[in-house]
């Protein structure tokens, strides 16, 4: 199984993501600079968190227009797996690969604290190592994580079971996301975008390993 992390200028959680992937996959992912658009032979493409292009204009807007996104789209069209975390999620929505948009947090402040996430379905490559309905903890760090989509889109997402993760008690919804949505899937279940950072909670020494099953799920799926 081969994984790559796309690095846009201003991305800053690529190292965290690489550590989490290496831990579960047993080998380091490839780091792909955004101007190199060769994604051939990869199983998984990850767009990590950070502030691509400084979050100027709109988070993810400029990265979404980058040439490498054509290659990411092609990878997804081939049935490849794509994971977008935080800024990565914003980039996927800006690129139209996932529906909806991420608005300013309802509280208008950057939110950096742990949140709790409920696993809405456990039959995906990303969530297989969680139980359905299980609640796990993950750090958040974003100013624009307020998920929005129009009612028709939301109904379709829910109807097709494409909501992967929702904010859950005790910490609840940190940013005003509609219907507590924290992460959504593409119709073929191979593209996941989510705001929180499971990659920053994969080591008990750093406060827990709640995020690790997500990467273990991917490793198991891709090895199969």
């Amino acid at each position, binding site marked *: 199984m081969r994984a790559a992390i796309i690095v846009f*200028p*201003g991305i*800053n*959680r690529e*190292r*965290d993501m690489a*550590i*989490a992937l290496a831990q579960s996959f047993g080998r380091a992912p490839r780091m792909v600079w955004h101007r190199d658009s060769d994604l051939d032979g990869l199983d998984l493409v990850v767009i990590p*968190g*950070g*502030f691509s*292009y*400084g*979050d*100027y204009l709109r988070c993810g807007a400029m990265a979404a227009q980058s040439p490498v996104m054509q290659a990411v789209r092609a990878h997804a069209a081939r049935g490849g797996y794509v994971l977008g975390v935080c800024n990565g999620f914003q980039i996927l929505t800006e690129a139209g690969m996932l529906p909806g948009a991420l608005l300013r947090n309802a*509280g*208008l*402040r*950057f*939110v*950096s*604290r742990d949140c709790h996430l409920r696993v809405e379905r456990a039959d995906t490559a990303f969530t297989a190592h969680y139980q359905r309905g299980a609640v796990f903890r993950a*750090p958040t*760090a974003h*100013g624009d994580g307020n998920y929005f989509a129009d009612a028709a889109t939301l109904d379709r997402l829910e109807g097709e079971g494409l909501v992967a993760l929702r904010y859950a008690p005790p910490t609840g919804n940190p940013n005003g996301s509609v219907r507590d949505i924290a992460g959504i899937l593409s119709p073929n279940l191979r593209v996941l975008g989510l705001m929180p*950072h499971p*990659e*920053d909670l994969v080591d008990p*020494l*750093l*406060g827990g390993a709640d995020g690790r099953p997500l990467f273990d799920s991917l490793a198991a799926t891709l090895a199969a």
Partner: protein
Amino acid sequence: MTGRVVDAALAREFGLNAEEYGRALAIMGRLPTLAELGIFSVMWSEHCSYKSSRVWLRQLPTAAPWVIHGPGENAGVVDIGDGLAAVFKMESHNHPSFIEPYQGAATGVGGILRDVFTMGARPIANLNALRFGDPSHPRTRRVVDGVVRGIGGYGNCVGVPTVGGEVNFHPAFDGNPLVNAMTVGIAPRDRIFLSAAAGIGNPVVYVGSKTGRDGIHGATMASAAFGEDSEAKRPTVQVGDPFTEKLLIEACLELMATDAIVAIQDMGAAGLTSSSVEMAGKGGVGILLDLDAVPQREHGMTAYEMMLSESQERMLMVLRPDRQDVARAIFEKWELDFAVIGRLTDTGRIVVRHQGRIEADIPLAPLADQAPLYHRPTAPPPPPPSLGAVADPAGLEAALLRLIGCPDLCSRAWIWDQYDATVGGQTVKRPGAADAAVVRIEGHRRALALTTDCTPRYCAADAEAGAAQAVAEAWRNLTAVGARPLAITDNLNFGNPERPEIMGQFASAVAGMAAACRALDFPVVSGNVSLYNETEGRSILPTPAVGGLGVLDDAAQAVGIALRPGLDLVLIGATAGHLGQSLWLREIAGQEAGSPPPVDLAAERRAGDFVRARILAGAVAACHDVSDGGLLVAVAEMALAGDAGCRLEAGPPNLPPHAFWFGEDQGRYVLAVADGAALLAAAAAAGVPAQRIGASGGGGLTLPGGATISLATLRRAHERFLPDWLGD
């Protein structure tokens, strides 16, 4: 400005007094040009020349076997083992943060980051030490909101976790808040980059953002007190661009992995002037600058403006000529400006050319050697107001609930929730989890412990004892997580040095720091002095902020403050019930009086070494030092952090309960351990005072008298203030 005649009056406007101007005339042997006058004025400003403080700073101990570079470089460098070095420094952005809180704080973070990565270190942590005015002052809210957003806005975007800091409120900061930012980075110990230029003929290269008319005379502004006309100084505000800084970090580190760089220096205060003068001066060479080659954002900039611009996110480097193309390719990849703007010469002079004219030509040696150095008069500080016996008007329960909710002790979660503390994936102890932040080094077991400390009210009452206390508290906080304290950086924030009583405070504070550093083997490796912190004649509380750094060989050994049930609580260190200058005295008895708690440096060291050894032996489940608010506040903080209750036993009969529980005696720790008896025996053997104060368990804090405060009640009292005051 261009048309101005250079004379003594203009020199005064630029911040040079008549004597200093005369000295500049003598060095030049002719009337200086405008650009030359600008260069003299910024190089001889308090900010760049340390002319009032330098004679005192020499007292600080700066050496230890583990110190690689002490003061004199962009940041201090210490050996932390595994072939690695920690590079760190703290710097103030007080005046800019008052004028424009968001941008002032943001550019403060940007500036200190550059001081660290310019030495070849990848920044791995930021801290911030903040002092604000009284919460009831109409301006304080806006300042707090802007400063916190600015620190988060910059640090979060560059992807360096903000892991710690401190906040105080006092009316003395109403018109002059303090924003001290600290950055810590990691480099291979044999790959440290310095700023001394070398190699006649080598190219001088400018990288980063373009130059605009930002913050011209910012360095002189930081060296002047605020008056009614501070509004008029507003156009000097600079806007930070953390995105460009992030690119600059990556590009510089990429270049530093090659052998292209001979010398490198960030452009901080007084931008191109101080960077070029310092690089050439330290290397004992001359430098020729061709300003036509400087990347410019605005049209028609003069030499004076370019030399004094404080545009952010820029660096100056001397490169090996045969590696210029390698360097250019890296900066082009990161879409940053890259321009050869000059070369090193053998003239010993700085020569600045612009549009076919020589705009400046100054000999470097006298510019440095003849910089003003003042032995300003000092007046001994007045003795602190004495304090007699104080009766307890409130009782333990009411006092505790008030204290843990007061601005100086309430939860800082509202602040740190806006700072990304986890980016990098190495944060072992986040804000609020331990007395010092703990950040592991990627790919190693090793971790750094980091803290900032100072109690300005102690320093106001007794600058020497207060400054010693600041050093001791930093050392104690590092010890309390199990770290071996290595060194400090400092940020000496004081009022107007031309006033003898302020200079007296300064001299006493340096003496106190020096004594504590010496006794604790805790040298000063970098720092910053910020003077003229006064508004309309009213000075801030003297604030010698200390940033401490320690090391843990194994991150897994770090302990935090969170209590769990089923443990014995033991107090280490002696308690005399010192209430002078305590928060209890101010918040409950309504007095700011008495002397601050004395620091017994020998006892401090004994207790700390004992505690650290127990932690490293794995015998301690949680540890918290006793500081602001005293023992009961420390225990309440441990209970809240762990969401575990405890039952406290009565204190010694010879002390009034409020003095025992709220006194701020120094050198103390609360340890939560499985085996209290073993700990007491070990302490007795080591000659360290220790006493059992209770045990953990239950859903509340049970006071010696029997009353129980539920954790929910405590939590409400602790967490309410900042959100209620600042919204959401």
